[in-house]
């Protein structure tokens, strides 16, 4: 029986082709980003100055963190709509500690924020994993419940900036040149998450669960456990983002983080994460967050009213989803044709 191997050239080109398409998304975002920056700067040179770049990074950092957590969940074919509420809860409760627990170290405050997020995420994860309830519905409910808890606790009160230590408030703004340290830290976190998701079994399990939940179960993947921890990560990250939000804005009331979940989903979708799970990267999602923040800032600088922002976000989501759909259809048929040709 003759060897039926593919010719070497076909083999290599198949791999490169797929990789190229996958990379294209990230390149695409970076390309759009560059275009935006170039166009905006040419019209309004002020755009590319330290101040504006810092603003963009400030906004992007929080959304990028949230997008990181959300991606972990969406990859496994789940949704976490409660991130905005978790952020708000964490923002208030953690920064309030500076008053309640005098002398608490900043690290302690971060730890508390993280713990709050982890707790909220664990509740989400437990209900989804154990009771097998669709995550869309669960996190829709906890979005309400966490926000309501937040409001119940805060009432009409708020935390004001002058109760927060200077060191805390300077975290978002301290930077090297135009690049805040925080942005570097978040970029590092994103890189670490990307590495973990790509190189460790639990990370690959998440992709498997999203790609074909039945097959994952049959293959012995501990789906309940993985999904649970995915929500814990998403919650924990939102908790951390809450603390950063407090440091960024200084004044925290019960509306902190309100509505953030939609922008996060927009970032994730724009970043190339498939809404049905199984594919997409945290790098793409973080870039999506960066792109959205850049567009918002660019519009502001160009004098276009901020009232355009949500409309543009919406149009972007639709465009991104349509593009993904088109890519998937093309990719599937192209790969199918390749395999038929190769077998001939």
């Amino acid at each position, binding site marked *: 029986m003759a060897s039926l191997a593919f010719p070497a050239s076909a083999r290599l080109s198949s791999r490169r082709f*797929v990789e190229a398409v996958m990379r294209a998304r990230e390149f695409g975002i970076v390309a759009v980003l560059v275009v935006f920056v170039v166009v905006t700067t040419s019209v309004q040179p002020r755009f590319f100055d330290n101040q504006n770049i810092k603003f963009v990074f400030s906004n992007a950092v929080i959304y990028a963190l949230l997008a990181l957590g959300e991606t972990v969940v969406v990859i496994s074919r789940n949704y976490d709509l409660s991130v905005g509420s978790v952020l708000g809860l964490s923002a208030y409760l953690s920064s309030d500690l500076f008053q309640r627990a005098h002398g608490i170290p900043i690290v302690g405050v971060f730890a508390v924020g993280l713990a709050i997020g982890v707790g909220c995420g664990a509740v989400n994860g437990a209900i989804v994993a154990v009771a097998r309830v669709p995550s869309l519905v669960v996190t829709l409910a906890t979005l309400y419940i966490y926000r309501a808890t937040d409001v119940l606790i805060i009432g009409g009160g708020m935390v004001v900036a002058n109760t927060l230590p200077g060191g805390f408030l300077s975290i978002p703004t301290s930077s090297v040149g135009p690049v805040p340290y925080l942005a570097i830290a978040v970029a590092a976190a994103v890189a670490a998450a990307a590495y973990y998701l790509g190189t460790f079994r639990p990370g690959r*399990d998440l992709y*498997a669960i999203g790609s074909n939940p039945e097959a994952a179960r049959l293959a012995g993947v501990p789906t309940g456990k993985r999904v649970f921890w995915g929500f814990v990560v998403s919650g924990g990250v939102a908790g951390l983002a809450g603390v950063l939000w407090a440091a960024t804005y200084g004044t925290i009331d019960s509306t902190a983080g309100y509505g953030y979940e939609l922008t996060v989903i927009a970032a994730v979708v724009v970043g190339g994460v498939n809404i049905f799970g*199984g594919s997409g990267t945290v790098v793409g999602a973080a870039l999506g967050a960066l792109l959205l923040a850049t567009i918002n800032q660019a519009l502001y600088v160009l004098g276009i009213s901020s009232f355009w922002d949500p409309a543009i976000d919406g149009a972007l989501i639709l465009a991104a989803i349509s593009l993904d759909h088109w890519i998937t259809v093309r990719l599937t048929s192209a790969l199918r044709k390749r395999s038929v040709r190769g077998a001939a």
Partner: protein
Amino acid sequence: MGTDKPLLVLEHVSKSFGAVQALDDASIELFAGEAHALVGENGAGKSTLVKMLAGVHRPDRGRLLIDGREAVLSSPAAARAAGIAVIYQEPTLFPDLSVAENIFMGRQPLRRGRRIDKKLMRRQVVEILKPLGVGLDPDRLCRGLSIADQQIVEIAKALSLDARVIVMDEPTAALSAYEVERLFGAVGALRHNGAAVLFISHRLEEVFQICQRATVMRDGRRVLCAPVSSLSAGDLVRAMVGRDMEARGDGMRRVPGEPVLQVERLTREGVFVDISFEVRSGEVVALAGLVGAGRSEVARAIFGIDSYDAGSVKVGGKPLRKGAPVAAMAAGVGLVPEDRRLQGLVMELSTAANIGLASLGRLRRYRLLRRAVERRFAEEWATRLRLKYGRLSDAVSTLSGGNQQKVVLAKWLSRNPRVLIVDEPTRGIDVATKAEVHRLLADLARSGVAVLMISSELPEVLAVADRVLVMREGRLVAALGGEEATEQTIVAAATGQAEVAA
């Protein structure tokens, strides 16, 4: 071949689901290094047996022995751990992940720090694929892989698990001749490794080609187990069916009328090419061929579920708009689809609702759907088809397979179609209901309907049809009428063999 002791034994196993006795004192023994055929008609119990080996079901009575020791397979994971791998007709792969990851999901080789060793994984995949004679790129996504390649990935998975019993359920159903050869090579490699391969197939010539022993099941039990060399195809068929081939139908007595359905040069790229035939009023035309030949796709294209790229369809001389089931139905065409559960019925709805689903417009009074009208309608047809049911308002999922098929038939017969296309009309139903369905189709033809029957069961084709069209790999390769249509000629055309030794 083997050692003295069998690798795996199912001993006097019984299993029932509600009122249905799927396995009734069934047994089978598998030895290391053999390819063992499991043959039987639909409903003989093969798939239940497979599910039992896969750890999905547990026997009500009887036991399973592995290496002589009793084993209980409480879950698919347990079956895998016991060294049993099942390759289904529909592979369950992760389309977004690579071939290598699909093979090793959950068991990827690790290096320091529990990181996945991608290089090693890639090398191992290449090693596994080598004896299978297939050069798939380990990093390639599984999305877009042909069925044949997906099967190879599943086999590679089984090999990587050091599976000692590999069950293949109708593996050649969707493969081209070239891919079948490749699969046989893989089976050889598996046997060489000392594994036992349980090979389930309807294609008897394949059984003779690669299997050493064969077990025939009928009505939930084993009726024959012997070395293949001591058997003939006739022996197998007789054992499967319990009788000689069904008597030839009375098709000759029907005088066909005018052509009602005319299909001309129908083409859908990559699926079927240049299909031309006609079906006259009063005749039953069978469309035979192996699974994957494109027959169901032609039916779907005629009915409008799928579109087509070239060619035309005419009903009663008038062209039929493509891609619109509503137009086909208005022209009097009906389609009883291949998959009863997924396409033919809405399992959660009642029997009455299912019977009326294609006739909703006729069940209205003053724009409102009247349940009473629907129920009377359903009753009338249930009686005419001798449907056995509890209450018409019960979900159709409570009916047996045969009765469910009758519901689908009722749905279409109640529209008084001029053309009825039936796709695998008796798949998975019991023998008595099968005969009823055949009689129904014959009566239908006698009353002037043009019937196009897609079937993979040769006895059925020969018993019911007036003419037989054979498709192979998307093309119409033979049109056999009357005396020309025999099992040999049909199989020869379907498998592309110029002649088959008698």
